[in-house]
């Protein structure tokens, strides 16, 4: 059916949706339809229960044919939800899909007003505006852009790794960028994972190895994204590869350089071991790091600080892999889709001074304890405290930093389970008495509640109460030398003092410190807590509002490993679906110059943030590159001659909308109307 192009006088079909009770419960939809029928150019006015359903859409396509309509207006929910649906219906009916205008009378009217009379009046104003506007719509063609088949994944923790493998196995070329010298993220630090008590390294290292060896994955570790430009399907990304001062190609990870270093022992707090041990200037984060390449820290290496080191490391390396002259490199890649899986950071327990973190040496954060109980950790898995003792009693405090108006309001979701896990591991390693101090036990996943049950049988003590303080004030002789946890045991209604040798703080999960900078770079939003914002919390949890950019894992919100992997798979699927579609439709809301009106004043040239406007020196007129234009409309508002127009948001269309909104009392304006 050939598309009509609206040259004839407008013949508007109007449809108002009940949306079940959602709209019709407040707005008198029948009255709105009756009102619409009285408006200029409206030929058909109907109300229907569910316009977005198949029969609803068929009303449109049938009416277009039978009533010879050339414009459609639907008053229902938000255009952000169904504008596309109804444009498709319009097109099916044989019209150009942009002869359609939507009126939001649900999110903006029925859902926010209880007064039926006021809501109906508001709906009518909005309908009148849309009817005026759609009359001056023009036929437009959607832009199609090709999608580059490669993908960039930022962040190589378990989420990034899983997404990379999924995409690489599907035959896509993936560049995986990780800012740390090794991939694996937080999961690489854990000892066992709940609820199965799988060894984290055992399940992670095969995946890390697969990433390293996959022909379709380019792994850039110790690298960071510095610049992103472009749009869906066509992103250009600059990545900074930081110098290790060791050649990745030549180093085999034998680590003899570390032994040979002039430092007899480490002096710098080891980042991977959370500062519980020390490392040398030449180091590897952990023995199974991927890539298995050492690196040199220029802040502490004598050669860098004085230029006069014996360089025993270079002597020892028979691969000649050490290169003090290595420089930072900037690489540029083109990709069609980007997945952000940048993870999280733990809450800094120093922000709660009355728990004594940083003050008392035997108060630990949970992530520190993960390293303590890990067989490849600083104490080889032996539970030895900072003062050399082995604890006979341990207190684990839940919800540190979480569920708290003073710090973070949200629940960090994983802490209850990992606290239970640590309780089990600590007891196993040391046979100490273990106390968990909790508010609620959140064990919602598969086999989580059963894990909690098991712990109850292991004689671990559970005290329900939010810990008030950890203090070294002893009130009784037997408390001497211990840390006292003061808490109200809300089950028995008594304030208790529980003396322990070791305190473990179950710190919550937070967005990374630079989450705001990262999200600005990629042009996505964050929610109020600071995690990356998903397009829809239920129906689009891994999409963002920027097409082509997806999020997965803890950067979207606190979650455990199973959920992170699930989201990573989902993000990979979304990226796959974009790439395999091959091309994508862009809304044709770009700006264009009407040459005869352009005076060549150049006001618009500097205005465009995408440098889409240039000047044709020969004609002395502005020229817009449609491929670069994103459709913001700023140049349109800037042009003093009105020579720049915007498709879909023409001045004429917006002025019509304004007129329609306000013309209840027909304006008695003399001298020109829109």
């Amino acid at each position, binding site marked *: 059916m050939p598309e009509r192009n609206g040259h004839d006088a407008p013949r508007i079909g109007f449809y108002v949706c009940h949306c079940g009770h959602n709209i019709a419960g407040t707005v008198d939809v029948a*009255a709105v339809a009756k*009102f619409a029928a009285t408006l200029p150019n409206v030929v058909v006015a109907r109300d229907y229960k569910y316009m977005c359903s198949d029969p609803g859409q068929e009303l449109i396509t049938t009416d277009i044919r039978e009533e010879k309509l050339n414009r459609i207006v639907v008053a229902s929910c*938000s*255009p*952000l939800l169904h504008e596309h649906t109804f444009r498709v219906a319009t097109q099916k009916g044989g019209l150009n899909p942009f002869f359609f205008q939507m009126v*939001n009378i*649900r*999110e*903006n*009217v029925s*859902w*926010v*007003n*209880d*007064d039926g009379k*006021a*809501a*109906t*009046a*508001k709906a*009518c*104003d*909005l309908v009148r*505006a849309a009817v005026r506007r759609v009359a001056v719509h023009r036929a437009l063609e959607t832009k199609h852009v090709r999608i580059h088949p490669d993908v960039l994944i930022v962040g190589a923790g378990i989420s990034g790794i899983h997404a990379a493998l999924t995409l690489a196995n599907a035959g896509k070329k993936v560049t995986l960028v990780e800012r740390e010298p090794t991939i694996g993220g937080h999961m690489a630090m854990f000892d066992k994972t709940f609820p199965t008590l799988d060894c984290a390294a055992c399940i992670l290292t095969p995946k890390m190895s697969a990433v390293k060896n996959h022909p379709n994955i380019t792994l850039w570790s110790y690298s960071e994204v510095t610049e992103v430009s472009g749009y869906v399907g066509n992103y250009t990304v600059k990545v900074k590869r930081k110098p290790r001062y060791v050649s990745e190609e030549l180093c085999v990870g034998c680590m003899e350089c570390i032994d040979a270093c002039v430092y007899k022992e480490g002096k710098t707090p080891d980042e991977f071991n959370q500062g519980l041990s020390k490392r040398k200037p030449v180091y590897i984060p952990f023995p199974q790091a991927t890539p298995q390449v050492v690196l040199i820290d220029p802040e502490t290496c004598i050669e860098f600080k004085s230029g006069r080191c014996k360089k025993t490391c270079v002597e020892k390396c028979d691969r000649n892999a050490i290169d003090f002259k290595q420089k930072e490199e900037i690489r540029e890649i083109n990709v069609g889709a980007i997945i952000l899986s940048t993870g999280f950071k733990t809450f800094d327990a120093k922000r709660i001074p009355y728990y004594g973190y940083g003050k008392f040496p035997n108060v630990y954060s949970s992530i520190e304890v993960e390293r303590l109980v890990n067989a490849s950790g600083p104490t080889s898995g032996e539970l030895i405290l900072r003062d050399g003792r082995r604890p006979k009693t341990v207190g684990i405090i839940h919800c540190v930093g979480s569920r708290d108006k003073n710090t973070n309001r949200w629940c960090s979701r994983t802490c209850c389970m990992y606290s239970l896990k640590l309780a089990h591991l600590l007891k196993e390693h040391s046979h100490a008495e273990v106390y968990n101090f909790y508010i609620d036990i959140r064990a919602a996943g598969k086999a989580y509640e059963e894990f909690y049950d098991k712990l109850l049988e292991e004689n671990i003590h559970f005290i329900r109460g939010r810990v008030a303080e950890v203090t070294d004030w002893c009130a009784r002789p037997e408390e001497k030398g211990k840390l006292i946890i003061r808490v109200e045991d809300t089950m028995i209604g008594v304030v208790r003092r529980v003396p322990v040798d070791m305190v473990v703080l179950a710190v919550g999960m937070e967005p990374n410190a630079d989450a705001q900078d990262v999200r*600005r770079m990629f*042009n996505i*939003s964050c*929610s*109020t807590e600071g995690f990356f*914002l998903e397009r829809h919390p239920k129906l689009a949890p891994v999409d963002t*509002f*920027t097409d082509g950019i997806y999020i997965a894992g803890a950067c979207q919100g606190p979650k455990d490993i199973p959920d992170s992997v699930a989201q990573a798979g989902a993000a990979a699927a979304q990226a796959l679906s974009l790439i395999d579609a091959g091309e994508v439709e862009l809304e044709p*809301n770009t700006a264009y110059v009407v040459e005869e009106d352009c005076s060549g004043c150049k006001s618009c040239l500097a205005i465009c*943030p*995408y440098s889409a406007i240039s000047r044709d020196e020969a004609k002395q007129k502005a020229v817009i590159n449609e491929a670069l234009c*994103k*459709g*913001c*409309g*700023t140049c*349109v*508002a*800037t042009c003093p001659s009105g020579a720049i127009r*915007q498709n879909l*948001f023409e*001045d004429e269309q*917006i*002025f019509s909308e*304004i*007129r329609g*909104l*306000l*013309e*209840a*009392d027909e*304006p*008695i*304006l*003399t001298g020109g109307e*829109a």
Partner: protein
Amino acid sequence: MTTTAEQANGWEPRIVAFFCNWCTYTAADLAGVSRLRHAPNARIIRVMCSGRLDPQFVLDAFARGADGVLVGGCHPGDCHYMEGNYKALRRVRLLERMLDGMGIHRDRFRLEWISASEGEKVKTTINDMVARVRALGPLALPAKFADWDREMDELEHAVAAQTEDVHA
């Protein structure tokens, strides 16, 4: 259906709101999804970016009878199109001065930065603005224009009637 712009019983402020698609319009939808009920006086016009806001839209809205105009955009630094909201800010500041000169009270024209997750802010902004505009009463420019046109007509006729007897 709609109320009149006369200062009679039942006058309700009419606010035209220009909301940017990515932040403020999304926040308004969020307010709807969260059922945050607020005053029904704002009518939203969606634009892709607050940078699209032509000052003439604002003036036209007032001229056609709006009692208030509200502009919503992303927070500075967060514009989906990078800088559109800064351009909007510049225009708004200049427009504010012009409106002052025209005798239109500051409370009738407002720029608010509202991000996509701030549904609550949409509600409080609209409620606050409606309260302020209600306190100011109707602006009723179309009626004023009609008066001035009538006056001009009368003056023209008055002068036309005199011309015979008056020397230049």
